[in-house]
């Protein structure tokens, strides 16, 4: 591998990883460092405000967004291991601060520096440049862990990151990427949606589980712990023989 560029990046770890899945954050740091990134963790960060914004509470969301803007003001790059928090910062902060010129400018500034974790690896660091999307699925599966990838909605349709996760996975040794049928169907998490309308959420989840089973994968992965908490929660309840890991954990080579 050629000498990686000397890049400085701040990790925005997201509140769900901070509190519930710290091991994912640890994997993110390890992977970034392995690629030569100088990683720091601005301690002033907590939640980006997305759950509040999605529920319509923009005043409260703004409080958290301003804290986030403050915490990340000095960073060259901001790496976020989540499509939905990344979308919040890159896309929705602009709406949130539409009538607040000063913070709007700061938000736009931040937006141009925010990358979702796999997007950062692919776009900024050029990792897996040599792997094409077509290599995905169909590699030699013998002895490898069969992994299938669920594209989370905000990563896909707000941040417009489609290829990099699959490319990174197919370039990962010991991993055979298998296709997930109807992959781009929402898993039914949707934050508070999952508890406000559990009857609909559970139907969507059931279909997602069925396609995961159909894929024959040993492992389901995604770039968002929200979706994985929801999918994994049902896998655990139903004792399905599928392990659930964030993509950073797979790239980190951490075993299930």
């Amino acid at each position, binding site marked *: 591998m050629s000498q990686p560029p000397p890049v400085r990046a701040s990790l925005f*770890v997201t509140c769900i*990883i*901070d*509190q*519930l*899945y710290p*091991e994912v*954050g*640890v994997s993110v*740091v390890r992977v970034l*460092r392995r690629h*030569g*990134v*100088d990683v720091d*963790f601005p*301690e002033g960060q*907590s*939640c980006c405000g997305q*759950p*509040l*914004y*999605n*529920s*319509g509470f923009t*005043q*409260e*969301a703004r*409080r*958290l967004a301003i*804290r986030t803007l403050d915490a990340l003001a000095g960073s060259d790059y901001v790496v976020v291991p989540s499509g939905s928090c990344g979308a919040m910062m890159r896309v*929705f902060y602009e709406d949130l601060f539409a009538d607040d010129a000063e913070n709007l400018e700061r938000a736009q500034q931040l937006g141009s520096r925010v990358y979702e974790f796999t997007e950062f690896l692919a776009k900024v660091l050029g990792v897996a440049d040599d792997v094409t999307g077509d290599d995905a699925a169909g590699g030699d599966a013998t002895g490898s862990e069969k992994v299938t990838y669920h594209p989370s*909605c*905000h990563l896909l*349709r707000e941040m417009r990151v489609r290829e990099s996760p699959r490319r990174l996975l197919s370039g990962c040794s010991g991993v055979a990427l298998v296709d997930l049928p109807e992959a*781009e*169907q*929402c898993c*039914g998490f*949707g*934050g508070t*949606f*999952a*508890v*406000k*309308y*559990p*009857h*609909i*959420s*559970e*139907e*969507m*989840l059931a279909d997602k589980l069925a396609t995961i089973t159909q894929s024959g994968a040993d492992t389901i992965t995604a770039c968002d712990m929200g979706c994985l*908490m*929801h999918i*994994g*929660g*049902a896998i*655990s*309840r139903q004792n399905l023989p599928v392990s659930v890991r964030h993509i950073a954990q797979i790239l980190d080579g951490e075993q299930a």
Partner: protein
Amino acid sequence: MAEVVTRQFVPASQAAVKDVQLRQALRRAGSGFDGTRREAIAEVSEEVWEGWREQARKIKEHTIGHLDYYLAMLERNVAAAGGQVHFARDARQANAIVSEIARRNGVKTVTKSKSMVSEELGLNHVLEANGIDVFETDLGEYIIQLAEETPSHLVAPALHKTRGQVAQLFAEQLGVPYSEDIEEMARVARVALRQKFLEADMGVSGANFLVAETGSLVIITNEGNGRLCTSAPRIHVGLAGMEKVIPSLQDLAVFLRLLPRSATGQRISSYVSMVTGPKRAEDEDGPEEFHLIIVDNGRSRLLRDPALRESLYCIRCGACLNVCPIYQRVGGHAYGWVYPGPIGSIVTPGLVGVAEAKDLPNASTLCGACRDACPVQINIPRMLLHLRHQQAESNDENERTSSDTDKLLARGFANVMSSPLLLKLGRTVGRAVSKPLAKSGKIGETRLPLISRWTQARDLPVPAERSFRQRWRDELSKDGR
């Protein structure tokens, strides 16, 4: 106006997700329509498609931005062609205008071709109350009229019915032998309706577009009966929401490419009818009178709100319904009014009131599939967020419908997340409370309020022993590279 049962969203959707036949019907239709739509796009290429969407969007932005101007132009040109435009402020007024036209002309029988606006107005009931027989002539509309139901999809009103259910309905209502053959069912309906076409003194149609520069009403169908409704009876009444106007025939071209492809994946629909005024001296047939009713019924409220205005760009293609994971599970009726699915979740609160339709903007994961499918690039998720914002924080008390619990939770969450001390405390409490509930690190089914709504189907992790920030301090910060 059509009955509004939007408050019943939760029980209605609970029943709908358990309805196996409904799910089957939805699945077949949804993936069918969406599949052909994708093929139609692939056929012209993504780039060309995006170009068309761009163009259509611009036309809509321009027209809706100058709506008064184009409606006035339309009115002049309809009049110049010998027709008459009526503006109706609300459903009551629109129904009164149509009833008056019918009364003046001694109308006994009305044939109709699909019109969502007439569903919105509840016109059939009003005409029937005046002793007029009303017959829907599109197969789908005819089916739901026989079944005394309402449409469940913008393009395929009887989509919720399986073939067997329709065959059953025909056998019971029309006394024909039970047959699930589609051709046969269509033939049965045609026979039943043929007589009505001959008897009808008034035809009522919707409009897909109104062309301002020519004063024309454009109808796009696959069955051709729309044509019979607009030409055979003595009087033709066209009904349209005021957002249906476009400037010119040239503008129509791009919509004729977008609409059929988005709706059914067809390159072009079987019939495109343009109606310009009543029968002229040189015409062989056509109605003696042509009336165009342009309906507001709450649309000017959407027009005034910059955050919701783009909902008026909708061309009712139904593509957003076909890709919506929520619509695909609950079906159209659960939404409680005429317009279902993603666009319905915006238009309905807009037209019947935010407080009346509280659930609709919330019953979405904001997955964004609708926006990507929409031929006019309507940003539906953004408008859903706006409506949620109104519920949480509107200055208008009637719109501010979020519960006190929601407000307290939001405030509490923001407080905890704003204070390192509270966050630490919150974790300690969270762990203390959840650990006794947990088995091997996970909380299973529990009766705890709120949490039980999660755990009824999914396990929940307990907060980790050390947070990430703790681990950063302990092991990662000094690690360097």
